[in-house]
């Protein structure tokens, strides 16, 4: 991997996401049981955990798509669960969300998918400005030649990258990636990992990356948070987590390597 995260772009003075005592349950099912997390500016943090452990729920709460039952979620100084309407929209312009299944708009081609968030949020852009922004974002993900294609005509990896490009077009400060490499072959995974680092450097983003892919976590993230039974077992550098004695953590790592 030629561009490893650069330590000095992380600014530990400034917190962009702060979560305190976060709880969330669906009916009887307790998904999150007291989450605490701090994301510094410029940092990439990986959230690891097995399927169904509540990773997607966690970032949906950060993006304000779900309401927490209890606890505080502060993003860029704003308490997300208290925001509504215009204030929420204003905050969301600074957050990029890459969905687990890309969530591209089926009825629109790649160009329209990218132009849509831009033209809906910034009025009176000229056609030229939109074209330029779309090309810039497609260039960042390396898929300029797919501009006319429909989502159905793209491969899974390409859809992921277009999904990332669509969030980049609004120049977010925070990127939330929901399993960016899930279901991709090793080469596409490596490409996505490189892209995540490129985004971090080119757009100066801070990111939460949800994954159960250890290579992705190790290569793209500065710290790793291990989600077990609705809590973070530990938040720290890859090697710190890796050397832990906890059985569930060990299982997670062993099975990952056997794959």
């Amino acid at each position, binding site marked *: 991997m030629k561009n490893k995260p650069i330590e000095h772009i992380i600014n530990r003075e400034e917190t962009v996401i702060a979560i305190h005592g976060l709880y969330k349950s669906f009916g009887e099912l307790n998904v999150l049981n007291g989450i605490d997390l701090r994301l510094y500016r410029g940092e990439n943090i990986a959230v690891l955990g097995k399927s169904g452990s509540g990773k997607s729920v966690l970032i*949906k709460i950060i*993006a*304000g*798509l779900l309401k927490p039952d209890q606890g505080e979620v502060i993003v860029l100084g704003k308490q997300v669960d208290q925001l509504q309407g215009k204030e*929420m*929209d*204003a905050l*969301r*312009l600074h*957050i990029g*969300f890459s*969905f*687990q*299944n890309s*969530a*591209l*708009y*089926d*009825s629109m081609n790649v160009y329209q998918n990218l132009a*849509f*968030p831009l033209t*809906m*949020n910034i009025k009176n852009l000229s056609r030229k400005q939109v074209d330029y922004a779309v090309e810039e974002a497609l260039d960042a993900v390396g898929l300029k030649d797919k501009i006319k294609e429909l989502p159905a005509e793209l491969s899974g990896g390409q859809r992921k990258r277009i999904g990332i490009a*669509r*969030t980049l077009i*609004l120049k977010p400060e925070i990127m939330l990636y929901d399993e960016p490499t899930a279901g991709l072959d090793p080469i596409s995974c490596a490409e996505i990992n490189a892209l995540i680092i490129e985004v971090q450097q080119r757009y100066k983003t801070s990111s939460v990356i949800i994954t159960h892919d250890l290579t992705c976590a190790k290569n793209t993230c500065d710290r790793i948070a291990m989600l077990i039974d609705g809590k973070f077992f530990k938040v720290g550098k890859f090697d710190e987590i890796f050397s832990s004695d906890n059985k569930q953590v060990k299982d997670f790592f062993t099975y990952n390597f056997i794959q």
Partner: protein
Amino acid sequence: MDSYLEGYYKGYRFCLRFFKEAFIPPFHWREIINQCFEVGLKSLSLITLTGFIVGIVFTKQSRPSLETFGAVSWLPSLIGIAIVRALGPLVTALICAGKVGSSISAELGSMKVTEQIEAMEVSAINPFKYLVVSRVLATTISVPILALYCSFIGLLGSYYNVYSEEATSLAIFYKNAFSNISFLDIFSSSVKSIVYGFTIGIIGCYKGYYASQGTRGVGKATNQAVVLSMFLIFFEEVVIVQIVNWIRYF
């Protein structure tokens, strides 16, 4: 029982939200116009065919009973009343419920289960306004126009039958057909169609917007949307006819 009440409450909130958001800018004119064309294009051919056939069949079936009273000359005016007052709006509404309502709920439902609606939300786009308001307005605007068109085609079908039997001219046929139709008839038909259009749009959107459980949920939502909107259309028909009759003879 509780879940029924909850469903009603959710539906009520959904309608309320529609009225709140429909009148607050920004308005997505282009999307509304697009959707109007969608509604029109989707149902036009079927409405033309059905309207024409209904006109022919209805005329053919009514003729013998009028003949027994020696009142065949009343045929155009009877057909006019039947088609403009009842059949045109109703046939249009049922066709649109099947064609447009189902496609709205299937489209929104699949957008919901593939997280496209959430994707709009996180890019600070109000999905309710962009998707729901524009579609409901589109059906509310288009269905009355289509109903008028359907009535016109229905009368044409009827004329086809009348002409083949009696060789009346089109002008005379239309004059006779409209001789007993009052302003109240046209007005109540239009109001009826507006209500049907709104029903089709809001039910389709509501079912789609709250679809869950993956692709199976989308199928279920679509099915429910068609059944529920057809049921409501008949219910509204009965209520509106009562009200109009009450006004007519008051």
